[in-house]
Protein backbone atom coordinates (compact mmCIF):
# COMPACT_ATOMS: atom_id res chain seq x y z
CA UNK A 1 0.00 0.00 0.00
CA UNK A 2 1.53 3.23 -1.18
CA UNK A 3 0.22 5.49 1.54
CA UNK A 4 1.40 3.22 4.30
CA UNK A 5 4.84 3.11 2.71
CA UNK A 6 4.98 6.91 2.48
CA UNK A 7 3.91 7.25 6.11
CA UNK A 8 6.49 4.74 7.30
CA UNK A 9 9.17 6.52 5.30
CA UNK A 10 8.16 9.82 6.84
CA UNK A 11 8.32 8.32 10.33
CA UNK A 12 11.71 6.71 9.61
CA UNK A 13 13.03 9.98 8.20
CA UNK A 14 11.93 11.99 11.20
CA UNK A 15 13.41 9.40 13.58
CA UNK A 16 16.72 9.59 11.68
CA UNK A 17 16.55 13.39 11.75
CA UNK A 18 15.91 13.39 15.49
CA UNK A 19 18.77 10.93 16.06
CA UNK A 20 21.05 13.09 13.92
CA UNK A 21 20.17 16.22 15.88
CA UNK A 22 20.93 14.45 19.17
CA UNK A 23 24.71 15.15 19.27
CA UNK A 24 24.04 18.84 18.64
CA UNK A 25 21.41 18.77 21.36
CA UNK A 26 23.85 17.21 23.83
CA UNK A 27 26.44 19.85 22.97
CA UNK A 28 23.78 22.50 23.56
CA UNK A 29 22.78 21.02 26.92
CA UNK A 30 26.44 21.05 27.94
CA UNK A 31 26.60 24.77 27.13
CA UNK A 32 23.27 26.39 28.09
CA UNK A 33 22.84 30.09 27.35
CA UNK A 34 23.45 32.37 30.30
CA UNK A 35 23.96 36.09 30.60
CA UNK A 36 27.49 37.21 31.39
CA UNK A 37 28.50 40.49 32.98
CA UNK A 38 29.15 42.69 29.92
CA UNK A 39 32.08 44.63 31.37
CA UNK A 40 34.11 41.45 31.79
CA UNK A 41 33.25 40.14 28.29
CA UNK A 42 34.40 42.66 25.74
CA UNK A 43 34.91 41.80 22.05
CA UNK A 44 38.28 41.39 20.42
CA UNK A 45 39.82 44.19 18.33
CA UNK A 46 38.45 44.15 14.80
CA UNK A 47 35.48 41.98 15.76
CA UNK A 48 32.29 42.35 13.76
CA UNK A 49 30.23 44.97 15.62
CA UNK A 50 27.07 42.89 16.13
CA UNK A 51 27.56 39.92 18.52
CA UNK A 52 25.14 37.78 16.47
CA UNK A 53 27.06 38.58 13.32
CA UNK A 54 30.27 37.65 15.13
CA UNK A 55 28.85 34.31 16.28
CA UNK A 56 27.90 33.49 12.69
CA UNK A 57 31.38 34.25 11.38
CA UNK A 58 33.54 32.72 14.14
CA UNK A 59 34.36 29.03 13.69
CA UNK A 60 35.86 28.65 17.17
CA UNK A 61 39.33 27.64 16.00
CA UNK A 62 41.11 29.47 18.83
CA UNK A 63 43.86 30.91 16.62
CA UNK A 64 43.36 34.40 18.07
CA UNK A 65 44.11 32.98 21.52
CA UNK A 66 47.14 31.07 20.33
CA UNK A 67 48.87 34.12 18.87
CA UNK A 68 48.03 36.60 21.63
CA UNK A 69 51.32 37.72 23.27
CA UNK A 70 49.81 38.80 26.64
CA UNK A 71 47.35 35.86 26.54
CA UNK A 72 44.41 38.19 27.10
CA UNK A 73 42.10 36.29 24.72
CA UNK A 74 39.75 34.00 26.67
CA UNK A 75 37.02 31.72 25.34
CA UNK A 76 33.38 31.35 26.32
CA UNK A 77 32.79 27.99 27.94
CA UNK A 78 29.54 26.77 29.45
CA UNK A 79 28.33 30.27 30.15
CA UNK A 80 28.53 31.23 26.47
CA UNK A 81 25.62 29.24 25.08
CA UNK A 82 25.73 29.61 21.32
CA UNK A 83 28.82 31.79 21.80
CA UNK A 84 30.69 28.81 23.34
CA UNK A 85 34.29 28.61 22.08
CA UNK A 86 34.22 32.14 20.68
CA UNK A 87 36.77 34.58 22.10
CA UNK A 88 36.39 37.53 24.43
CA UNK A 89 38.64 39.68 26.57
CA UNK A 90 38.23 40.20 30.27
CA UNK A 91 40.05 43.48 30.90
CA UNK A 92 39.83 42.98 34.66
CA UNK A 93 42.25 40.08 34.21
CA UNK A 94 44.28 41.19 31.22
CA UNK A 95 43.91 44.05 28.78
CA UNK A 96 44.56 43.95 25.05
CA UNK A 97 47.87 45.44 23.86
CA UNK A 98 46.47 46.24 20.39
CA UNK A 99 49.25 44.34 18.62
CA UNK A 100 46.80 43.26 15.91
CA UNK A 101 48.07 39.67 15.64
CA UNK A 102 44.59 38.20 16.23
CA UNK A 103 43.13 40.32 13.43
CA UNK A 104 45.88 39.14 11.10
CA UNK A 105 45.52 35.46 11.93
CA UNK A 106 41.73 35.12 11.94
CA UNK A 107 40.84 32.82 9.01
CA UNK A 108 37.30 34.12 8.66
CA UNK A 109 35.82 37.59 8.58
CA UNK A 110 35.04 37.47 12.31
CA UNK A 111 38.06 39.68 13.03
CA UNK A 112 38.87 42.19 10.32
CA UNK A 113 42.29 43.75 10.02
CA UNK A 114 42.06 47.49 10.64
CA UNK A 115 44.27 50.31 11.95
CA UNK A 116 44.17 50.39 15.73
CA UNK A 117 42.62 53.86 15.73
CA UNK A 118 39.53 52.35 14.04
CA UNK A 119 39.20 49.47 16.50
CA UNK A 120 36.03 49.63 18.56
CA UNK A 121 36.01 47.27 21.52
CA UNK A 122 34.08 49.81 23.58
CA UNK A 123 35.06 52.88 25.51
CA UNK A 124 36.48 53.29 28.99
CA UNK A 125 34.14 54.71 31.57
CA UNK A 126 35.31 56.21 34.85
CA UNK A 127 33.10 56.09 37.91
CA UNK A 128 33.81 59.47 39.47
CA UNK A 129 32.53 58.55 42.91
CA UNK A 130 35.12 55.78 43.36
CA UNK A 131 38.26 56.74 41.43
CA UNK A 132 40.91 57.88 43.98
CA UNK A 133 41.77 61.31 42.52
CA UNK A 134 38.13 62.08 41.72
CA UNK A 135 37.16 61.60 45.36
CA UNK A 136 40.33 63.35 46.53
CA UNK A 137 41.71 60.22 48.15
CA UNK A 138 45.14 60.43 46.59
CA UNK A 139 47.27 60.81 43.52
CA UNK A 140 47.13 58.15 40.82
CA UNK A 141 47.04 58.50 37.02
CA UNK A 142 47.95 54.86 36.35
CA UNK A 143 45.32 54.59 33.59
CA UNK A 144 46.67 57.64 31.81
CA UNK A 145 50.24 56.39 32.00
CA UNK A 146 49.46 52.92 30.69
CA UNK A 147 47.18 53.90 27.78
CA UNK A 148 48.76 52.75 24.50
CA UNK A 149 46.95 55.46 22.52
CA UNK A 150 48.13 58.36 24.65
CA UNK A 151 46.40 61.68 24.83
CA UNK A 152 43.83 61.01 22.11
CA UNK A 153 42.17 58.46 24.41
CA UNK A 154 42.66 59.53 27.98
CA UNK A 155 44.05 62.56 29.76
CA UNK A 156 43.82 64.58 32.94
CA UNK A 157 41.03 66.90 33.87
CA UNK A 158 41.96 70.53 33.28
CA UNK A 159 41.09 71.60 36.79
CA UNK A 160 42.92 68.83 38.61
CA UNK A 161 45.83 67.20 36.86
CA UNK A 162 45.35 63.89 38.68
CA UNK A 163 41.73 63.31 37.70
CA UNK A 164 41.57 61.08 34.57
CA UNK A 165 39.12 61.89 31.77
CA UNK A 166 38.38 59.60 28.80
CA UNK A 167 38.14 61.09 25.30
CA UNK A 168 36.33 59.85 22.20
CA UNK A 169 39.56 58.43 20.77
CA UNK A 170 39.51 55.55 23.27
CA UNK A 171 39.17 52.16 21.55
CA UNK A 172 38.46 50.15 24.70
CA UNK A 173 41.57 47.98 24.90
CA UNK A 174 41.13 47.67 28.67
CA UNK A 175 44.73 48.14 29.78
CA UNK A 176 43.54 50.91 32.12
CA UNK A 177 41.10 48.47 33.75
CA UNK A 178 43.86 45.92 34.22
CA UNK A 179 46.16 48.45 35.87
CA UNK A 180 43.62 50.30 38.05
CA UNK A 181 44.65 49.96 41.72
CA UNK A 182 41.23 50.78 43.23
CA UNK A 183 39.70 47.42 44.34
CA UNK A 184 36.20 48.26 43.10
CA UNK A 185 37.59 49.03 39.61
CA UNK A 186 35.95 52.41 38.97
CA UNK A 187 37.04 52.19 35.33
CA UNK A 188 35.25 49.79 32.99
CA UNK A 189 34.91 49.19 29.25
CA UNK A 190 31.34 49.73 28.00
CA UNK A 191 29.83 49.50 24.54
CA UNK A 192 29.62 52.88 22.84
CA UNK A 193 25.94 52.28 22.16
CA UNK A 194 25.25 51.71 25.83
CA UNK A 195 25.84 55.37 26.54
CA UNK A 196 27.07 56.16 29.99
CA UNK A 197 27.10 54.14 33.18
CA UNK A 198 25.40 55.88 36.09
CA UNK A 199 25.36 59.13 34.18
CA UNK A 200 28.95 60.04 34.89
CA UNK A 201 29.83 60.73 31.29
CA UNK A 202 33.06 59.95 29.64
Amino acid sequence: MKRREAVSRLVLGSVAGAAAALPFGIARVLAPPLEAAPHTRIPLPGALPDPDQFARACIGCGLCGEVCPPRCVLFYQREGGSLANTPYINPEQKGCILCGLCMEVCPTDALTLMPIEDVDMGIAQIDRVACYPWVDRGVCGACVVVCPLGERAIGFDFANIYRPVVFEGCVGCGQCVEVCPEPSLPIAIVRRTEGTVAGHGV
Partner: protein
Amino acid sequence: MNAADEQPFFLWRHLNRLRWLTLSLVFALLVLLPFLHLYQTYVAAHAYDFLAPGERLIYDAMEWLTGPFTSDPARDLDAIKGTTWSGNFFGLALSDPLALAGHIAASLSLHWAFVLSALIPVVATIIFGRFFCGWICPATFIYELNETFAAWLRRAGVPLGDRRLSKRLKYVVLGAGLVLCAVSGSVIFAAIYPPALVGREIYYAIAQGGFGVGAVFFLLTLLFDLLVARRGFCRYLCPGGALYSLLGRYRLFRIRRIVHNCNDCVKCNVVCEFGLDPMRDGFGQECNNCSACIAVCPVDALTFKVGVRDDPAQGPGHQGSAYRRRRQREDESDTGAAA
Protein backbone atom coordinates in the same frame (compact mmCIF):
# COMPACT_ATOMS: atom_id res chain seq x y z
CA MET B 1 53.35 -10.05 -16.79
CA ASN B 2 50.85 -12.70 -15.89
CA ALA B 3 47.99 -11.40 -13.78
CA ALA B 4 48.50 -14.27 -11.34
CA ASP B 5 52.04 -13.02 -10.58
CA GLU B 6 50.85 -9.60 -9.49
CA GLN B 7 52.28 -8.52 -6.12
CA PRO B 8 51.60 -5.30 -4.25
CA PHE B 9 54.36 -2.72 -4.01
CA PHE B 10 56.34 -3.84 -0.97
CA LEU B 11 56.06 -0.51 0.88
CA TRP B 12 52.26 -0.51 1.05
CA ARG B 13 52.31 -3.08 3.80
CA HIS B 14 54.37 -0.72 5.99
CA LEU B 15 52.11 2.27 5.36
CA ASN B 16 50.10 1.52 8.48
CA ARG B 17 53.17 2.20 10.61
CA LEU B 18 53.81 5.44 8.74
CA ARG B 19 50.18 6.33 9.42
CA TRP B 20 50.66 5.82 13.14
CA LEU B 21 53.74 7.99 12.94
CA THR B 22 51.82 10.85 11.31
CA LEU B 23 48.92 10.46 13.76
CA SER B 24 51.34 10.58 16.70
CA LEU B 25 53.20 13.54 15.21
CA VAL B 26 50.01 15.56 14.69
CA PHE B 27 48.90 14.78 18.22
CA ALA B 28 52.32 15.60 19.68
CA LEU B 29 52.31 18.89 17.76
CA LEU B 30 48.88 19.76 19.17
CA VAL B 31 50.30 19.22 22.67
CA LEU B 32 53.53 21.09 21.94
CA LEU B 33 51.96 24.20 20.35
CA PRO B 34 50.22 25.45 23.53
CA PHE B 35 53.48 25.09 25.45
CA LEU B 36 55.28 27.03 22.73
CA HIS B 37 52.59 29.69 23.02
CA LEU B 38 53.10 29.90 26.80
CA TYR B 39 56.83 30.26 26.17
CA GLN B 40 56.14 33.04 23.66
CA THR B 41 54.01 34.92 26.17
CA TYR B 42 56.74 34.65 28.82
CA VAL B 43 59.30 35.91 26.33
CA ALA B 44 57.04 38.78 25.25
CA ALA B 45 56.56 39.79 28.89
CA HIS B 46 60.32 39.65 29.64
CA ALA B 47 59.17 37.96 32.82
CA TYR B 48 61.60 35.12 33.47
CA ASP B 49 62.42 36.32 36.99
CA PHE B 50 58.74 36.49 37.93
CA LEU B 51 57.78 33.02 36.72
CA ALA B 52 56.58 30.31 39.06
CA PRO B 53 58.82 27.20 39.18
CA GLY B 54 56.47 25.24 36.88
CA GLU B 55 56.34 28.06 34.35
CA ARG B 56 60.10 28.38 34.53
CA LEU B 57 60.36 24.69 33.69
CA ILE B 58 58.18 25.24 30.59
CA TYR B 59 60.30 28.25 29.64
CA ASP B 60 63.58 26.33 29.95
CA ALA B 61 62.30 23.26 28.13
CA MET B 62 60.87 25.26 25.24
CA GLU B 63 63.96 27.42 25.04
CA TRP B 64 66.05 24.25 24.81
CA LEU B 65 63.77 22.86 22.09
CA THR B 66 63.52 25.96 19.93
CA GLY B 67 66.84 27.61 20.70
CA PRO B 68 68.69 26.02 17.76
CA PHE B 69 66.03 27.21 15.30
CA THR B 70 65.12 30.72 16.32
CA SER B 71 66.59 33.77 17.96
CA ASP B 72 63.26 35.63 18.09
CA PRO B 73 60.75 33.13 19.54
CA ALA B 74 58.03 35.72 20.12
CA ARG B 75 57.74 36.19 16.35
CA ASP B 76 59.26 33.14 14.67
CA LEU B 77 57.19 30.59 16.57
CA ASP B 78 54.06 32.08 15.04
CA ALA B 79 54.96 30.08 11.91
CA ILE B 80 52.97 27.05 13.08
CA LYS B 81 49.77 27.93 14.87
CA GLY B 82 46.34 26.49 15.34
CA THR B 83 44.73 23.08 15.19
CA THR B 84 43.44 20.82 12.45
CA TRP B 85 40.19 22.81 12.53
CA SER B 86 42.01 25.85 11.21
CA GLY B 87 45.66 26.68 11.36
CA ASN B 88 48.66 28.41 9.88
CA PHE B 89 51.54 26.37 8.58
CA PHE B 90 54.51 28.51 7.53
CA GLY B 91 52.33 31.21 6.07
CA LEU B 92 49.88 28.76 4.51
CA ALA B 93 46.41 29.02 6.02
CA LEU B 94 44.65 25.64 6.13
CA SER B 95 41.09 25.00 7.29
CA ASP B 96 38.85 22.01 7.67
CA PRO B 97 36.27 21.79 4.86
CA LEU B 98 33.62 21.20 7.54
CA ALA B 99 34.55 24.56 9.10
CA LEU B 100 34.01 26.14 5.69
CA ALA B 101 30.67 24.36 5.24
CA GLY B 102 29.54 25.46 8.72
CA HIS B 103 30.72 29.03 8.12
CA ILE B 104 28.86 29.24 4.82
CA ALA B 105 25.70 27.77 6.36
CA ALA B 106 25.81 30.04 9.42
CA SER B 107 26.70 33.31 7.71
CA LEU B 108 25.05 32.51 4.34
CA SER B 109 27.95 34.21 2.62
CA LEU B 110 31.37 33.40 1.24
CA HIS B 111 34.54 34.82 2.74
CA TRP B 112 37.02 34.18 -0.06
CA ALA B 113 40.19 34.08 2.05
CA PHE B 114 38.57 31.35 4.13
CA VAL B 115 37.35 29.44 1.07
CA LEU B 116 40.92 29.47 -0.28
CA SER B 117 42.28 28.12 3.01
CA ALA B 118 40.02 25.07 2.67
CA LEU B 119 40.96 24.52 -0.97
CA ILE B 120 44.03 22.31 -0.42
CA PRO B 121 42.21 19.95 1.99
CA VAL B 122 39.25 19.71 -0.40
CA VAL B 123 41.45 18.86 -3.39
CA ALA B 124 43.45 16.36 -1.33
CA THR B 125 40.20 14.72 -0.21
CA ILE B 126 38.95 14.46 -3.77
CA ILE B 127 42.18 12.66 -4.66
CA PHE B 128 42.82 10.57 -1.54
CA GLY B 129 39.30 10.20 -0.16
CA ARG B 130 38.68 10.18 3.54
CA PHE B 131 42.43 10.16 4.32
CA PHE B 132 42.10 12.91 6.94
CA CYS B 133 40.12 10.50 9.16
CA GLY B 134 42.80 7.84 9.05
CA TRP B 135 46.00 9.82 8.77
CA ILE B 136 45.68 13.22 10.46
CA CYS B 137 42.63 13.50 12.70
CA PRO B 138 43.83 13.86 16.32
CA ALA B 139 40.59 12.27 17.51
CA THR B 140 41.33 9.14 15.45
CA PHE B 141 44.55 8.80 17.44
CA ILE B 142 42.54 8.61 20.66
CA TYR B 143 39.70 6.56 19.16
CA GLU B 144 42.11 3.89 17.89
CA LEU B 145 43.78 3.72 21.30
CA ASN B 146 40.29 3.48 22.77
CA GLU B 147 39.60 0.61 20.37
CA THR B 148 42.75 -1.17 21.58
CA PHE B 149 41.59 -0.60 25.14
CA ALA B 150 38.20 -2.08 24.17
CA ALA B 151 39.97 -5.15 22.77
CA TRP B 152 41.73 -5.65 26.13
CA LEU B 153 38.44 -5.27 27.94
CA ARG B 154 36.79 -7.83 25.66
CA ARG B 155 39.64 -10.23 26.26
CA ALA B 156 39.15 -9.74 30.01
CA GLY B 157 35.53 -10.69 29.54
CA VAL B 158 33.89 -7.28 29.83
CA PRO B 159 30.82 -7.18 27.58
CA LEU B 160 30.98 -4.17 25.26
CA GLY B 161 28.56 -2.96 22.63
CA ASP B 162 29.03 -3.78 18.98
CA ARG B 163 25.80 -2.62 17.41
CA ARG B 164 25.52 -1.87 13.73
CA LEU B 165 23.67 1.31 12.88
CA SER B 166 23.06 2.78 9.47
CA LYS B 167 26.13 4.36 7.88
CA ARG B 168 23.80 6.86 6.29
CA LEU B 169 23.06 8.39 9.69
CA LYS B 170 26.18 10.55 9.53
CA TYR B 171 24.99 12.20 6.32
CA VAL B 172 21.78 13.09 8.14
CA VAL B 173 23.93 14.48 10.98
CA LEU B 174 25.80 16.60 8.42
CA GLY B 175 22.55 17.84 6.91
CA ALA B 176 20.97 18.50 10.31
CA GLY B 177 24.14 20.33 11.39
CA LEU B 178 24.07 22.59 8.34
CA VAL B 179 20.42 23.43 9.00
CA LEU B 180 21.14 24.04 12.70
CA CYS B 181 24.10 26.28 11.77
CA ALA B 182 21.80 28.43 9.64
CA VAL B 183 19.02 28.45 12.26
CA SER B 184 21.13 29.05 15.37
CA GLY B 185 23.48 31.52 13.69
CA SER B 186 26.66 29.89 14.97
CA VAL B 187 29.06 27.29 13.60
CA ILE B 188 27.61 24.53 15.75
CA PHE B 189 29.86 21.85 14.20
CA ALA B 190 32.69 23.24 16.32
CA ALA B 191 30.89 21.95 19.42
CA ILE B 192 30.55 18.32 18.29
CA TYR B 193 33.31 17.65 15.72
CA PRO B 194 35.92 15.52 17.56
CA PRO B 195 39.14 16.74 15.85
CA ALA B 196 38.13 20.35 16.53
CA LEU B 197 37.28 19.43 20.12
CA VAL B 198 40.55 17.61 20.73
CA GLY B 199 42.78 20.36 19.37
CA ARG B 200 40.88 23.04 21.24
CA GLU B 201 40.60 21.20 24.53
CA ILE B 202 44.33 20.45 24.58
CA TYR B 203 44.92 24.16 24.10
CA TYR B 204 42.40 25.07 26.82
CA ALA B 205 43.90 22.57 29.25
CA ILE B 206 47.46 23.77 28.79
CA ALA B 207 47.20 27.50 28.08
CA GLN B 208 43.81 28.52 29.47
CA GLY B 209 43.90 26.71 32.77
CA GLY B 210 41.49 23.81 32.30
CA PHE B 211 39.36 21.68 30.01
CA GLY B 212 36.19 23.22 28.59
CA VAL B 213 32.79 21.70 27.82
CA GLY B 214 34.10 19.99 24.70
CA ALA B 215 36.07 17.56 26.83
CA VAL B 216 32.84 16.29 28.37
CA PHE B 217 31.32 15.77 24.93
CA PHE B 218 34.46 13.99 23.72
CA LEU B 219 34.37 11.64 26.73
CA LEU B 220 30.75 10.86 25.83
CA THR B 221 31.83 9.89 22.30
CA LEU B 222 34.52 7.61 23.76
CA LEU B 223 31.85 5.92 25.90
CA PHE B 224 29.63 5.65 22.83
CA ASP B 225 32.44 3.83 21.03
CA LEU B 226 32.95 1.49 23.96
CA LEU B 227 29.38 0.76 24.93
CA VAL B 228 27.30 1.15 21.78
CA ALA B 229 29.21 0.66 18.56
CA ARG B 230 32.83 -0.03 17.71
CA ARG B 231 34.34 3.23 16.33
CA GLY B 232 30.71 4.30 16.34
CA PHE B 233 31.15 8.06 16.26
CA CYS B 234 33.38 8.03 13.17
CA ARG B 235 31.28 5.44 11.41
CA TYR B 236 27.77 6.62 12.14
CA LEU B 237 27.76 10.15 13.51
CA CYS B 238 30.75 12.27 12.48
CA PRO B 239 29.61 15.11 10.20
CA GLY B 240 33.18 15.69 9.03
CA GLY B 241 33.53 12.04 8.07
CA ALA B 242 30.30 12.37 6.11
CA LEU B 243 31.58 15.42 4.25
CA TYR B 244 34.91 13.72 3.48
CA SER B 245 33.12 10.56 2.33
CA LEU B 246 31.02 12.59 -0.08
CA LEU B 247 34.04 14.52 -1.38
CA GLY B 248 36.05 11.30 -1.68
CA ARG B 249 33.37 9.26 -3.41
CA TYR B 250 35.31 9.31 -6.68
CA ARG B 251 38.75 9.39 -5.08
CA LEU B 252 41.69 8.40 -7.27
CA PHE B 253 43.63 6.32 -4.76
CA ARG B 254 41.80 3.31 -3.43
CA ILE B 255 42.56 -0.12 -2.10
CA ARG B 256 42.01 -3.09 -4.40
CA ARG B 257 41.99 -6.83 -3.79
CA ILE B 258 44.19 -9.07 -5.96
CA VAL B 259 41.81 -11.99 -6.25
CA HIS B 260 44.54 -14.44 -7.39
CA ASN B 261 46.43 -14.03 -4.12
CA CYS B 262 43.49 -13.85 -1.73
CA ASN B 263 42.77 -16.87 0.46
CA ASP B 264 39.53 -15.57 2.03
CA CYS B 265 40.98 -15.52 5.57
CA VAL B 266 38.81 -12.52 6.62
CA LYS B 267 41.63 -10.85 8.56
CA CYS B 268 41.07 -7.66 6.57
CA ASN B 269 37.40 -7.52 7.49
CA VAL B 270 38.21 -8.09 11.15
CA VAL B 271 40.91 -5.43 11.31
CA CYS B 272 38.88 -2.79 9.46
CA GLU B 273 37.71 -0.41 12.15
CA PHE B 274 35.17 1.12 9.83
CA GLY B 275 33.44 -2.24 9.37
CA LEU B 276 34.02 -2.41 5.63
CA ASP B 277 34.30 -5.59 3.58
CA PRO B 278 37.70 -5.68 1.84
CA MET B 279 37.48 -9.46 1.38
CA ARG B 280 34.50 -9.06 -0.93
CA ASP B 281 35.79 -5.87 -2.60
CA GLY B 282 33.43 -3.75 -0.50
CA PHE B 283 35.33 -0.49 0.11
CA GLY B 284 33.08 2.30 -1.07
CA GLN B 285 33.28 5.96 -0.08
CA GLU B 286 33.70 5.21 3.64
CA CYS B 287 37.22 3.78 3.26
CA ASN B 288 39.80 6.14 4.79
CA ASN B 289 42.82 4.54 3.08
CA CYS B 290 44.27 3.70 6.48
CA SER B 291 45.90 0.58 4.96
CA ALA B 292 45.44 -1.53 8.10
CA CYS B 293 43.97 -4.28 5.90
CA ILE B 294 47.05 -4.22 3.65
CA ALA B 295 49.31 -4.48 6.70
CA VAL B 296 47.41 -7.44 8.13
CA CYS B 297 47.02 -9.43 4.89
CA PRO B 298 49.16 -12.58 5.15
CA VAL B 299 49.23 -13.30 1.41
CA ASP B 300 49.77 -9.83 -0.12
CA ALA B 301 46.36 -9.79 -1.68
CA LEU B 302 45.60 -6.09 -1.09
CA THR B 303 47.21 -3.17 -2.85
CA PHE B 304 46.53 0.38 -3.96
CA LYS B 305 45.20 1.23 -7.34
CA VAL B 306 44.47 4.42 -9.24
CA GLY B 307 40.93 4.73 -10.49
CA VAL B 308 37.66 6.41 -9.66
CA ARG B 309 35.68 3.24 -8.94
CA ASP B 310 36.13 0.09 -6.88
CA ASP B 311 36.52 -3.20 -8.70
CA PRO B 312 33.20 -5.01 -9.06
CA ALA B 313 32.90 -8.01 -6.74
CA GLN B 314 35.47 -10.58 -7.91
CA GLY B 315 34.13 -13.60 -6.09
CA PRO B 316 36.08 -15.86 -3.72
CA GLY B 317 39.87 -15.60 -3.55
CA HIS B 318 41.77 -18.05 -5.74
CA GLN B 319 43.84 -19.40 -2.85
CA GLY B 320 40.71 -20.05 -0.80
CA SER B 321 39.14 -23.48 -0.34
CA ALA B 322 35.75 -22.43 -1.73
CA TYR B 323 37.26 -21.35 -5.03
CA ARG B 324 39.48 -24.46 -5.30
CA ARG B 325 36.58 -26.78 -4.56
CA ARG B 326 34.50 -25.12 -7.23
CA ARG B 327 37.32 -25.37 -9.75
CA GLN B 328 37.75 -29.05 -8.90
CA ARG B 329 34.05 -29.68 -9.43
CA GLU B 330 34.16 -27.89 -12.76
CA ASP B 331 37.20 -29.94 -13.85
CA GLU B 332 35.51 -33.17 -12.87
CA SER B 333 32.35 -32.31 -14.74
CA ASP B 334 34.50 -31.32 -17.75
CA THR B 335 36.35 -34.64 -17.77
CA GLY B 336 33.05 -36.45 -17.19
CA ALA B 337 31.57 -34.69 -20.21
CA ALA B 338 34.65 -35.57 -22.29
CA ALA B 339 34.42 -39.25 -21.30
